[in-house]
């Protein structure tokens, strides 16, 4: 069992900075997910933790030990790769046994440990097969069995589910979560899929352009995004954004822009007034009702089954999305009235993207 501390980690490739000085504490036994668009530096960070990349500067501490100068194999890690990296010329048994063979473990002990791991991942019938004879889900289990067999204190996973089809991916999420619960090891999981991050993580690290945008629990990140980037990255459909500025109203601060005015939470600090800002509202917090104040025109309806997405014009060519009950009577072209729930309005600085609160 081991926690990980990352201190001012930097990685540059020539003139390109992939990781720009990140610091991070991963708690022992935590399921931490690093999420961000491709090229945000999440995989590079993972590779530096694993030892496959050498940091340009900064320090990595695993279980209280600085590992910068340790070989990947000496760090006590297990890793699952995006392409799984099963050895195609070895049987499933040999694939799982590889790490133990390298450690020169006696053959009887190897057989026992491989059996245990295979049992745990329900792949015993596959042991004599070659990786190419296994299905996508089976290969996934083999890769996991190969990783757990050496009892690593830390598991690193680099988008391991990205090659699976949608249904299998959801099943494997549950399985991974269960595995984490059973092993109580530290998991660091990299993905670009925000839904994956939300469902599995204890804490999420959102990265963009080599920096950490926000670190927090899934709900913190969803409910109080620290930057406009984080707000836009999480949630489907993407959060609605409106540009404007904050003005002082009779009953507290108000947002004015895109041809509309919206009262804001009273808790908003006074010095936001007059600054250019971006108002963010999630689709489920856009209210469409006769009692609402603002006029719009429905354009497109997307029924999801449990809800319906209404794309509508909010004036000045601004298109917004609302998530409403599935039994809506709206039709494309119909006029509607909408409003935002003040307590669910997020306000970001237009220049820096940082949250006003």
């Amino acid at each position: 069992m081991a926690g990980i501390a990352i201190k001012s980690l930097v990685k540059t490739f020539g003139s390109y900075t992939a990781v720009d000085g990140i610091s991070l504490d991963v708690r022992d036994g935590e399921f931490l997910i690093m999420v961000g668009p491709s090229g945000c530096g999440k995989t590079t960070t993972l590779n530096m933790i694993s030892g496959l990349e050498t940091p340009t500067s900064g320090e990595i501490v695993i279980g209280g030990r600085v590992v910068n100068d340790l070989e990947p194999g000496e760090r006590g890690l297990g890793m699952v790769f995006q392409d799984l990296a099963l050895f195609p010329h070895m049987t499933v048994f040999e694939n799982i046994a590889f790490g133990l063979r390298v450690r020169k473990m006696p053959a009887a002990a190897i057989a026992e440990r491989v059996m245990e791991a295979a049992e745990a991942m329900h792949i015993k019938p596959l042991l004599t097969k070659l990786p190419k004879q296994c299905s996508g889900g089976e290969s996934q289990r083999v890769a996991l069995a190969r990783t757990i067999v050496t009892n690593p204190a830390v598991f690193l996973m680099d988008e391991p589910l990205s090659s699976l089809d949608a249904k299998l991916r959801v099943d494997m999420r549950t399985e991974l979560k269960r595995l984490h619960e059973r092993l109580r090891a530290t998991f660091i999981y990299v993905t670009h899929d925000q839904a994956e991050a939300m469902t599995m993580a204890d804490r999420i690290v959102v990265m963009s352009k080599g920096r950490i945008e926000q670190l927090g629990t899934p709900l913190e990140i969803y409910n109080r995004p620290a930057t406009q980037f984080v707000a836009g990255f999480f949630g489907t459909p993407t959060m609605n954004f409106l540009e404007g500025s904050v003005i002082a109203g009779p009953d507290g601060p108000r947002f004015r822009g895109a041809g509309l005015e919206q009262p804001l939470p009273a808790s908003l600090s006074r010095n936001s007034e007059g600054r250019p800002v971006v108002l963010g509202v999630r689709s489920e917090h856009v209210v469409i009702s006769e009692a609402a104040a603002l006029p719009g025109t429905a354009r497109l309806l997307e029924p999801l089954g449990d809800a319906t997405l209404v794309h509508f014009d909010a004036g000045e060519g601004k298109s917004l999305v609302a998530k409403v009950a599935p039994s809506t009577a709206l039709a494309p072209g119909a006029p509607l009235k909408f409003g935002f729930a003040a307590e669910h309005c997020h306000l970001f600085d237009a220049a820096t993207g940082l949250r006003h609160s």
Partner: protein
Amino acid sequence: MSRPPDTGTSLAAEAARARKRRRERSRRVTRHALLIAWTGFIAFPIFWMISTSFKDAGEWVAWPPHWLPHAPTLHNYAQIFAFGALDPTLSRQATEQAFTIWKGLGDAVLVCTSASLFALLLGTFLAYAISRFNVGGKYFRHTILMIRMIPPIVVAISILIYYAIIVPYVTSALFGVRISLFDTYVGLVLIYTVTTLPFVIWMMLTFIDEVPYTLEHAARLMGAGRVTVIRRVVLPLVASGMVVTFLFVFILNWAEFLLALTLTHPEVTTLTVLLNKFQSASEGRLYGPQAAIGTVVTIPVVILGLLIQKHLVKGFSFGTIRK
């Protein structure tokens, strides 16, 4: 596919289809005729070599030519495969000099096998370094092939000077022992290794590039060192590529003539050099034994090809690894 309605137009369509069929057939016939003619053109020297190898002296240059030997004989083979002094019954009026194949065959097998193995070993590791660490920069792999564009004759003489003059002089001056590389197995193996290395590197690069580097990363994370990674993961995956490369290089060496001719005589004699001796023999041209040797030289290459056919297909299709 839409067919015209079954009326008068269908007759025209039928005729058009028939014309198309005829055109296709005549095209096919022409194509095959051309290919057969070309095959005959290519295969004729081989046929003529084998045929001549069974002819007696009088038939070698008979006019009109004897396509097949009128009096087939194994004389030529008996002569080239003879052990020790030539049996008087095998000796012909014109052939007092004995040309047995054993020395040439032995030398060729020894030199070609060891040179090809050395080149394969060196080249595989060099290719690994180039593929994984970008040794030499981005264009190094192309530069390597360029080395082979220099005609061998250009280097042959300078190598000869090194082998026969500079190396002996330097070694005797430095160590007091005169070591010559001229006309030695080591010398020939060395030059063959060097000349085929670019091909080995080039071919092995294509195979090693195919091995996903995540396999190596996975192995290293499980605690394997670089050597173990290469031995247990990379080499098994490029094994069939290595077999193909070995065969290719072996054939190159087996057929090499110019360097062997320049850098050896009389101690080391490869088969190609041996073959050449028949040309300049003062007794005249001995086409029979020459053809017999030619036939024998071709056989190992064919056998090797058949033995590793499976690997050859696998190797050349580059489909060994499913990603």
